[in-house]
């Protein structure tokens, strides 16, 4: 009964929903098998939509490639995209719509932690196999959310990579930790500070800065006075990151800044007073999408770029976002191919048996007790100012 | 003080208003009022408080909207004219109750009255006002709020002079003034009339008004209760009747 009504409503809302899914329906005409419907919750507009746009390109590209090659077991892939604008309320509504009305078999996203935290408990009872696009640790919980698998590294993996780089490569013992006054910033500031102390380092200064603050000079001076040898910076606000770098450069300080990938975006570059202020900024990155000392990407990534050609615009986004989106659709194909069906239980079993899937973004592996699939060793640090065609060079020391 | 003027019948009509209905919001104060002012004459508009005298002046000068009726001034239809257009045409309304701009100087208050004058003419017009009220010239740099009530009233009338009226509508110029000042203000009005400016005077001091006016209208409760072609020949009892709603004040000779 529910399904019937869902169908009828869909015809009423045909234009609306069709509009959102149209790009991926092109080759689905002749298919006699029902499509594999994948719900994709993503902030495509609104604040913090840059990652979502990057992921979306990868997902669209993979869908196109796979559908042209015949889809998954003869079934075309249909992506049901919902723009959540980074608003948890909209995300929950959209999540319920795709699972209970669109009856999607897989779920990707949301791309923003506040949204993921809200949608996961809501969608959990529908037992839809889902790939998480958020780094918050608590989202992976095998007992409560058995159908959720994380494709990205977790927040802990990020902070660990950053802190290892500070302690082992830069050999700095005293750090200042800075976060922005948002949900992500406050949470990560605490995590990063306590982990750093646990690892034997010394946190000499912490500060939360309003992401719209006009100036960070006072904070930089205080950090410098406190004797910080390096700064851990956890903010996804490009404006704030640029202001911190400008303040650091302005007072003539050159302590390295290590932290969030948002410090390496083109937006930050545009906001810098001097190009040199981008020096000594090291951001979380991935071996798979980093240039080595010789300026070469790993072979698998090079093949991917050849496949992509000019079909996906890379100059204004980050390669790993595209790669990650591309991998998601392929992980779903792999699960259906190896599990034998798109039944949730079969998919779950298939993913849990996955030891090392050779993705573009990384080699994923899950087990019945571990749904964090990204290998810690592949999380590396990049030099922020080395951005070229969506990728960065490895930071010095690798 | 009667001033010799041409016979009323020979003068051409300057202002003709017919069937004016106006009020504030839903409240109609005027319910179909006719009034005429001829060139060079002085007309007194009398009536008890709340009769609608000020409302009528505001409706004529375009400060409040009319819901019915027409106004012609100097041959042109000014029914829908803005107050600015009225002032430019020479239809000038001096509000009751000392409406000066307190924080501005006396001179600035007069300058604002010259808003619609050609820039080159402003100084001359203001000088005219200073001639009529020399005490304003002495206080030209004083803030208007520092003036006494009587001086503020002079300033308001002076603003009327600066606007170079063809018809000057004065709304209770005597309110709050000492008798000496009342005479001063009315003398200025009389002098203007002598120069050919028509005067429409709303005044509580009936005798003073009758002293100046050629003709009289009495407004009561939103309608014209009395129209007299001659101020001099008007029986006080008739005014009293119109004023007090039909009953004369017994046994009183004004």
């Amino acid at each position, binding site marked *: 009964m*529910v399904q019937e*009504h869902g169908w009828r*409503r869909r015809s009423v*809302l045909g234009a*609306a*929903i069709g509009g*959102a899914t149209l790009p991926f329906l092109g080759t689905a005409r002749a298919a006699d098998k029902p499509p594999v419907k994948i719900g994709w919750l993503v902030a495509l507009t609104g604040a913090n939509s840059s990652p979502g746009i990057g992921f979306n390109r990868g997902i669209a590209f993979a869908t196109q490639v796979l559908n042209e090659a015949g889809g998954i077991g003869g079934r075309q892939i249909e992506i049901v995209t919902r*723009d959540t*604008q*980074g*608003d*948890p*309320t*909209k995300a*929950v*509504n959209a999540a*319920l719509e795709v*699972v*209970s*009305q669109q009856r999607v078999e897989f779920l990707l996203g949301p791309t*923003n*932690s*506040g949204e993921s*935290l*809200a949608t*996961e*408990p*809501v969608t959990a009872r529908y037992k839809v196999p889902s790939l998480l696009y958020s780094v918050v640790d*608590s989202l992976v919980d095998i007992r409560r959310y058995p159908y959720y698998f994380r494709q990205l590294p977790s927040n802990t993996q990020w902070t660990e990579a950053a802190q290892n780089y500070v302690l082992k490569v830069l050999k700095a013992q005293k750090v200042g930790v800075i976060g922005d*006054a*948002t*949900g992500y*910033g*406050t*949470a990560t500031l605490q995590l990063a500070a306590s982990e750093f102390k646990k690892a034997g380092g010394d946190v000499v200064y912490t500060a939360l800065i309003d992401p719209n603050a006009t100036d960070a000079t006072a904070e930089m001076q205080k950090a410098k006075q406190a004797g910080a040898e390096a700064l851990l910076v956890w903010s996804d606000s490009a404006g704030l990151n640029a202001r911190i770098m400008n303040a650091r450069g302005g007072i003539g300080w050159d302590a390295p800044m290590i932290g969030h990938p948002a410090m390496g975006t083109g937006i930050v570059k545009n906001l810098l007073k001097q190009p040199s202020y981008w020096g000594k900024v090291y951001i979380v990155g991935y071996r798979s999408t980093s240039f080595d000392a010789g300026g070469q990407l790993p072979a698998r990534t090079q093949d991917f770029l050849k496949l992509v050609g000019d079909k996906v615009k890379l100059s204004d986004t980050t390669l790993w976002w595209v790669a990650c989106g591309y991998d998601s659709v392929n992980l779903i194909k792999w699960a259906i191919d190896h599990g034998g069906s798109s039944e949730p239980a079969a998919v779950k079993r298939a993913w849990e048996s996955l030891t090392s899937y050779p993705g573009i973004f990384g080699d994923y592996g899950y087990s019945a007790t571990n749904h964090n699939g990204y290998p810690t060793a592949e999380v590396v640090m990049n030099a922020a100012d080395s951005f070229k065609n969506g990728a960065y060079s490895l930071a010095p020391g690798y | 003080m009667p001033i010799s003027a041409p016979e009323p019948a020979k003068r051409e009509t300057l202002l003709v208003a017919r069937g004016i209905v106006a009020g504030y919001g*839903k*409240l*109609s*104060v005027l319910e179909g009022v006719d009034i005429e002012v001829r060139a060079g004459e002085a007309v007194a508009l009398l009536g*008890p*408080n*709340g009769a609608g005298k000020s409302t009528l002046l505001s409706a004529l000068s375009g400060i409040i909207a009319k819901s019915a009726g027409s106004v012609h001034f100097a041959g042109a239809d000014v029914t829908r004219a803005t107050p600015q257009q009225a002032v430019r045409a020479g239809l000038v309304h001096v509000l009751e109750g000392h409406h000066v701009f307190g924080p501005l100087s006396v001179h600035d208050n007069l300058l604002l009255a010259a808003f619609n004058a050609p820039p080159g003419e402003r100084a001359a017009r203001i000088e005219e006002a200073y001639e009529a009220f020399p005490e304003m010239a002495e206080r030209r740099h004083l803030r208007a709020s520092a003036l006494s*009530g009587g001086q503020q009233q002079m300033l308001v009338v002076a603003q009327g002079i600066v606007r170079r009226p063809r018809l000057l509508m004065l709304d209770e110029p*005597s*309110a709050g003034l000492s008798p000496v000042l009342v005479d001063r203000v009315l003398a200025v009005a009389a002098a203007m009339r002598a120069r050919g400016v028509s005067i429409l005077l709303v*005044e*509580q*001091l*009936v*005798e*003073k*008004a009758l002293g100046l006016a050629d003709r009289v209208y009495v407004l009561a409760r*939103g309608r014209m209760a009395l129209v007299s072609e001659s101020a001099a020949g008007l029986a006080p009892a008739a005014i009293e009747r119109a*004023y007090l*709603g*039909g009953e004369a*004040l*017994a046994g*009183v000779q*004004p």
Partner: protein
Amino acid sequence: MKAPTALRPAATIIAGALLLATLPLFLNDYWVHIATLAGTYWVLVSGLDLVVGYAGMLAVGYGGMLAVGAYTASVLAAKAGLDPLLALACCTVTGVIAGIIVGIPGLRLTSFYFAMATLGFAIIVTQVALAWGSLTGGGIGLAAPAYADPFASTGGFYCLVLIIDALATWLVWNIASGNPGRALIAVRDADVAAEAVGVPIARLKLSVFALSGALGSVAGGLFATAQSYITPDAFTLDLSVLFFIAVLIGGRGRIVGPMIGTGLLTLLPEIAAPLVAWSAFVYACLLLVVVLLAPGGIAELLERLRRAPPPIDRMAGPEPEAMSAALVSAPRAAGQLALAEVSRAFGGVRALDGISLTLAPGTVHGLIGPNGSGKTTALNILSGFYAVHSGRIRLGEADITRTSVQARAALGIARTFQTPRILGEASVIENVMLGAWRHAAASFGEVALGLPRFYRDERALRAQAMAALATVGLAAWANARADRLQHSEQRFLEIARALAMRPGFVLLDEPAAGLSAAEIENLGAIIAEMRRLGLGVLLVEHHADFVFRISDQVTVLATGRVLAAGTPAEIRAHREVVHAYLGA
């Protein structure tokens, strides 16, 4: 419109809720969730309607209330292990506190300032949630309480929301239809009238803020569960604006309109999914369109269709003999109301300069004088709107010089206004019932809960108001909107409202202005009956012959001083009075 009983609203609400409770049988989880969300929002909007719609306070930032409740419920359930239903109940406590915190600035700030302050409140709540990480989980947030059966499922939770919706609607309906609702509209449309009939404005506003805060907070508790998890990100400015627009689009001062508005605005972004990026823009557009084209909202449009045409016989003759019923009991003879040597200046101008005046029960005292002579100032001083700079005001033996307007109303001093201060959007009889404010026995809480005393009050006040309307000849208009009355009828309405106060003294400020000759006759008859029944009447009036005709005593003011005082005959013969009037 019949006198209200407990049954009618209750039956309507229960029937509506039962009807809505069948939705999960037809709809999938998604639509049930949307319905749940709309229901949750309605709990908040119902209370906000009292603040914005009835009291006219521009509280823009009620998303903050939602956050307060969401965190209260979640923290208590997650950290203190409280039962979710108990945690939800606790939301009322934090809601009341938050409501009062928002309300206190609301007592003093004007529209734009208050709107800014409430926006600030919404920002502060989320900032505090962010900063107080140990309690709220900071940016990571915390899980919302999950209810046990039968409210655990999507449909079950929806039913819980419906039950609370019904309760909220019931509370708000009672408040809106009772004494507080009328007083709130008065605060919005004619605050001086509210003061004059003795409404304790500050206390009333705070009560309403407390109630709306409690409802907003409970809505927040439900919202948290509907969302399953809360972070500060969830409480966006858009949400605050949505609530606010829901009230306006629905039509302020009504209940059905905002309810429809809430439903529409919750559905809108779901139906227009591709427009998601534009949703905030669409809301804003809607707001502008509503404000510019239909400030009365949906409810006003419905109202226009429903209102009965006005009776043909516009002004039935007054029935002064009904006045004793309107006054219920004979006025208390509290002694004379007197001004002694009272002075008052405005910015250096002496409006009153040592005035003495006595108003005795059972007499009519006329107060005349030219414009600006201080008549209305004297009336405002008697009724308490202006403080005196020197001199005394006495009622019998008691000194009431420093007594507030409201307290003077309680002492039996009623007044009307030069420009009638009526509640245009309320019905005629509601305007009069406002006057009987003090004679209602039920407290704010009793009204909200619809306890028997509330209905007894309503019946008694309605009967009394009908008598007052009959007295002034407006009984046929009882259920018409007051702003449909002509200006002169509004003057009589004000007199009826003054009578409903059961006063000892009535101060009439130019009651004959704008009245026809026949209406003035009616007014005279009404005033005569007031005198006969022992009321003291102060008549401030320009219409001199009318004053002379019906007054026992006349005082003439000129430039703030008493020019003459005596019987009408004495005054008529007084030479200076004639001078003052005719300037001779």
